[in-house]
């Protein structure tokens, strides 16, 4: 396919916006404060001159129009969901509804202070209560905490809860099992809670090998952390048996809910044996990624783990909400205040907008889209695991590697076609993985453009591998020198 045939992208208009410090000039201002209605004070006199700084060296000084131009120009250097498909596996890059942004800014919610009187916070607390109830219903679990700030934070909370329960039962145990296909946060989390980590093999279908699991589960094992569907997009179809094996030895089943977008309205983790799980509200429940955060890592548990949840918890007293701090078995706080409240508002708005059966329909569309891509591309790319995929599909670069082209190169060439790359080189059990998750947001048109691009690249790999290996060619910034960045880290701007 020549450049003339590529339907989506045009070279970016060249702009050389530097850093804000390079735009600064002494004395410029972008602000105006009101006149003081109280007497001015002498800072050095009140605080002691040794406690007062002379100035903030090299801090920006620009006018308002320079500020808006600077940030607007920088924004144009970004790809975003608003611009097109992000086929990132396990990230669930679905549309971020704008109504969420509007409701999160409602004054009585946006300016609510966490320490304001409960009598004046009933609306804020109602939002939390509704979301907890909705997530409990969706997951089939008994209780939910919205305190954790992100998925990894939720995992930490979940494993802390597990440890607390096992300690109360007499033995916290020594290790946590993790499938070899797991996301890196899983073992990192287990280590933070004082557990050793042991890998469990996946079988030829890409799911947890139940026999291998049964052999290693004993009274030293606190939990198995499993993602379902797993990071290959494949449903762990022996999950009920997995739960039985663990429960027989008193161990817990922890589910990483990163892939919940395949299950909402279709299957509930609480129904198939999960004891504790986290959800990524910024994945399944549409809250915006914002360039890397904020997220929210709600944790849902069965009854037996509920007493250990972080506090405070909401309780209803005479028909009004109150915060209950009397939680003798709680593992404690995992952060100050109540949770990433602004994110919670957005997640609840999403759930309200879809409702039931809307949520189930979204899931079905997500799986439809991923399966459509799989069928279209399985002739061009190697499919290492043939089981039915759900909301995402994982290929490997085995075919292309014969021409010296790897998944990372294909990903970079995809940029020339106007798409963000898929997830590269993960999960680790697939050599040279291409992990693709379109989400329900994408129309057939967008998917067809993506499929065309991937097919075209597959042909390019055979006809002109260098074209792919040296991609991207049409971006404002070409491949960056990551080696140099790591050898001599420059982490801030400094004046010459």
């Amino acid at each position, binding site marked *: 396919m020549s450049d003339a045939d590529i339907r989506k992208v045009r070279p970016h208009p060249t702009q050389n916006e530097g850093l804000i410090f390079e735009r600064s000039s002494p004395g410029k201002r972008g602000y105006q404060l009101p006149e003081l209605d109280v007497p001015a004070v002498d800072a050095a006199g009140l605080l002691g001159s040794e406690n007062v700084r002379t100035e903030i060296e090299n801090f920006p000084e620009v006018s308002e129009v320079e500020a808006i131009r600077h*940030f607007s120009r920088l924004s144009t250097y970004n790809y975003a969901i*608003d611009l097109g498909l992000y086929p990132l596996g396990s990230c669930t890059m679905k549309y971020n509804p704008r109504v969420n942004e509007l409701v999160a800014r409602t004054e009585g919610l*946006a300016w*609510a202070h966490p320490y304001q009187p409960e009598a004046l916070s009933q609306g804020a607390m109602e939002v939390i209560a509704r979301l907890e109830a909705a997530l409990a219903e969706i997951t089939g679990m008994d209780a939910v905490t919205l305190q954790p700030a992100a998925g990894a934070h939720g995992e930490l909370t979940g494993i802390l809860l597990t440890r607390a329960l096992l300690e109360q039962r007499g033995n916290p145990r020594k290790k946590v099992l993790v499938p070899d296909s797991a996301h890196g946060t899983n073992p990192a989390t287990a280590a933070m809670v004082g557990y050793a980590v042991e890998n469990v093999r996946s079988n030829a279908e890409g799911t947890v090998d139940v026999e291998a699991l049964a052999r290693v589960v004993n009274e030293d094992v606190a939990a198995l952390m499993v993602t379902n569907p797993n990071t290959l997009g494949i449903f762990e179809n022996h999950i009920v048996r997995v739960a039985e094996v663990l429960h027989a030895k008193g161990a817990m089943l922890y589910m990483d809910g990163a892939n919940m977008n395949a299950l909402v309205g279709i299957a509930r983790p609480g129904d198939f044996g999960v004891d504790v799980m986290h959800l990524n509200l910024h994945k399944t429940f549409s809250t915006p990624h914002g360039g890397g955060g904020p997220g929210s890592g709600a944790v849902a548990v069965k009854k037996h783990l509920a007493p250990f949840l972080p506090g405070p918890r909401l309780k209803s007293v005479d028909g009004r909400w109150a915060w209950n701090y009397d939680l003798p078995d709680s593992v404690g706080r995992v952060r*100050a205040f109540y949770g990433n409240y602004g994110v919670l508002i957005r997640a609840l708005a999403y759930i309200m907008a879809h409702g039931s059966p809307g949520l189930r329909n979204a899931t079905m569309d997500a799986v439809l889209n991923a399966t459509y891509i799989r069928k279209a591309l399985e002739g061009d790319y190697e499919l290492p695991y043939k089981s039915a995929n759900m909301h995402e599909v994982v290929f490997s670069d085995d075919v292309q590697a014969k021409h010296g082209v790897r998944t990372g190169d294909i990903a970079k060439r995809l940029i020339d076609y106007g798409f963000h790359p898929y997830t590269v080189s993960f999960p680790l059990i697939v050599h040279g993985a291409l992990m693709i998750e379109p989400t329900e947001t994408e129309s057939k048109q967008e998917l067809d453009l993506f499929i065309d691009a991937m097919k075209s690249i597959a042909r390019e790999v055979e006809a002109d591998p260098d074209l792919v290996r040296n991609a*991207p060619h049409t971006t404002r910034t070409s491949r960056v020198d990551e080696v140099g*960045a790591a050898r001599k*880290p420059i982490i801030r701007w400094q004046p010459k």
Partner: protein
Amino acid sequence: MLSAIGVSSLDELFSHLPEEVRIRAPLAIEPGKSEYEIVEWFRGQAALNANGYASFLGGGVYNHYRPVLVDTVVSRGEFLTSYTPYQAEISQGTLMTIFEFQTMICQLTGMEVANASMYDGSSAVPEAAMMAIRITGRDRIVVSRAVHPEYREVLATYTKHQGIPVAEFEYDRETGRLDAAALERALDEKTAAVIIQSPNFFGVVEDVRRAAEIAHARGALLIYVFTEAVSLGLLAPPREADIVAGELQSFAISPSYGGPYAGVIAAREKYIRQMPGRLVGETKDSRGNRAYCLTLSTREQHIRREKATSNICTNQALLALMATVFMTVYGRQGLRELAEQNLAKAHYLGSQMDLRFSGPYFNEFVARADGQTPEQINAALLDKKIIGGIPLGRWYPELSDSMLLCATEMSRREHMDAVASVFSAQEAFAR
């Protein structure tokens, strides 16, 4: 599409799922609502909260004006709906603004490296503690009782299972600053770090130099925590500290009933490889142009897995961007002027109160209720549509006759006069 896949219905796509896992009944959730209904519902909930009240609450979350430009910038779809900048070629916008953020944090704190943000100030503290432990090879932490109580709770939760004892040391009952003798007693050769907050939970500015001297003399690092970022517009940067852990909510991040906020960790350059969280570095692209990318990723969970510096994956990019825009709009002069206004307002109110502590304070202070209880004073203030301060008895039994009050540039003279008059008991006795 179905025919392209070779199935005749959507349901068939799920036929591979075992019967036993399938949902038994539709989700017990109402059908989807229209945009109008959703907006109205949230408006209704917001109306049940405090609206139109003057507030003197602080305690880790502060009422500061949010310049309009902040939401203008972060509402741009390219910032709002973009992903983590793993693909540098199409994420330079995010990467450059994070690089600017890292730079500004260094300029404010006097540190040499800063990360691309942590979840919030409260979780940045245990992360800083873990960093100090990795750096020194020691395994004890000592923390001031004047550090925010909820931050100390989070520290306890994180350290519980890692074999790290945490000891608290007292504050001076008269000044409200750290008690140097108590600190000396708490330290030993196994202490990795001393954690102080400034201004501390009582609003009092700590003697950072003294704390650093004491800590360093015993081979421990000094961790400086801040919850009120505006204070750095005026206070001397904590150059004596080894690690800084802070909260940036004051920089145009809405209070929003407790979150999301943005924390940050900054430190001396030599500790960079022990730092948790994302880092953006400067480099060149293949054409020789300056470019930016995530770097030193080998510290992180996706590579080190169980040996990672932390399990953290997300940073608070959008909120860090709000803070970056705020810092740009106010800039070098503006942040100073803003801090001076805060100081003036708080001292206007504080000078009319019976202050509990004699130490220097920024925009928060502890006032005695004198003849009433803090709860009575707050009830009287609510009648005037004023939310008073935070009664301290729930965390500090020795201070149950006092409350923590905060005044910022948004506080108005007439409301401060009303607070002072209720405190002076005329109002209360008249009830």
